[in-house]
């Protein structure tokens, strides 16, 4: 091609080669400039100097914590607060109805394949969900919007 399609490109964009296996983070919130290039020439990732490479952040790539913490609490009410089900593990007798109440500003849900639960989106004034557990067993559930939020209902005979 005889002409550049993007005459402005060279001055608008600073191409930054990202070092292989390196991690580049750009904190927009703390940046005073109006443009934040984080460009990479994908064909040659190892070329050039990693101009904005930062050390990996603490906690990066740590395994997910999926096991609910704490002993089972005998209660029929679960609070959803601070992106967590509390208590995370409850125990009820068969035939009991359990009620969840979301007091977070963010919406959450209560979803479980094993217990056939799928709440509406719990937020604002429609922030409670109830489900009757008829059959003994252990039912794991989570929030479909924030699936790392886990809870368990243990139903005894």
């Amino acid at each position, binding site marked *: 091609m005889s002409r550049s*399609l*993007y005459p402005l490109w060279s001055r608008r964009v600073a191409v930054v080669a990202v070092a292989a296996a390196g991690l580049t983070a750009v904190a*927009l*919130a703390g940046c005073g400039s109006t443009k934040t290039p984080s460009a*990479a020439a*994908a*064909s040659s990732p190892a070329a050039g100097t990693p101009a904005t490479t930062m050390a990996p*952040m603490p906690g990066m*790539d740590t395994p997910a914590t999926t096991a609910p913490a704490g002993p089972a609490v005998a209660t029929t009410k679960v609070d959803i607060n601070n992106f967590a089900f509390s208590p995370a593990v409850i125990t009820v007798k068969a035939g009991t109805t359990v009620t969840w109440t979301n007091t977070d500003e963010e919406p959450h849900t209560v979803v479980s394949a094993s217990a056939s639960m799928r709440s509406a989106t719990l*937020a604002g004034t429609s922030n409670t969900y109830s489900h009757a557990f008829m059959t003994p067993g252990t039912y794991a559930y989570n929030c479909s919007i924030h699936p790392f939020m886990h809870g368990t209902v243990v139903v005894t005979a």
Partner: protein
Amino acid sequence: MSPTASQRPGSPEPASPATAPGGATIDRRSFLRHSAWAGAAVAVVVSGGVVTTKLVSSSHTAPATQDFAFVQISDSHIGFTGPANANVTSTFSEAIDQVNALPDRPDFVIHTGDLTHFSSVAQFDQVKQMLGSLKTGQVLTVPGEHDSTDDTGQKYRQVFGAGSQGDGWYSFDHKGVHFVSLVNTINLQSLGHLGGDQLSFLKADVAKLSDSTPIVVFSHIPLFAMYEPWGWGTDDAVQALSMLRRFGSVTCLNGHVHQVMSKTEGNVTFHTAAPTAYPLPRPGVGPAPKPVVLPAGRLHSALGVRDVHYLRRSRGLAVTDEVLA
């Protein structure tokens, strides 16, 4: 256009070595030039009046790519109310205006999910209407988990799912680059999830491509392990990425984490995008990925749009993240 199901109707024009820069149909001289790349056999296909060439034995040849630009916007959360952003509609509108003011008109704009906050029909309609004001050839989307808060994406697909398969995935070719839009926000256990059907789709979708075809993958949740305690990763991404290992250039663009971050692993570069709605904490900072309330006047510097240029000369993507003006 090939009538394969993987080609999204109405998507940008199919990969076309036969289409010269500027859109002119290939002439005989340039056809010979193309076919002489590496002595590859070239099949000429005429479909619907559009001439395309397909490299039959093309594992060592380069597809004819052209320079072009597209834009990524993400995480607009229409319907959100809270101190982190008192007016997400306004900042989404400003993002659209900023895209429309770019010096190079993007061939298409991709929104990488969380179009809405509550997946309501009214919110989807509002987003569709607002996206309609983008000055671009085509608007594409992938869903976020906020676009399926109380269903498994049915309402999203009713508005945005035309031409897609399964939960809303699709692929297309544009000026020699192969694009795949994946859905990793349905039936989640802890992390993002693609599922067997989608992995089968991806395997078949890329099987026909030469190793030198540049690949761009869109998804909402990152395909790399950014911070798994907050669900910032995809549990079966490794299987998807293994299907892309043979390609020289793979770029994965996602949203979800509401902040800009880049990472390179081998042949794959990942770029997470800024939101148009509100920032989230850096990975692991604080107890939960709650919307961050910034001091007055600082919100716009945490929001943005992403301008992406494909550069034939470097066979790579130049990614520019611009904060909201």
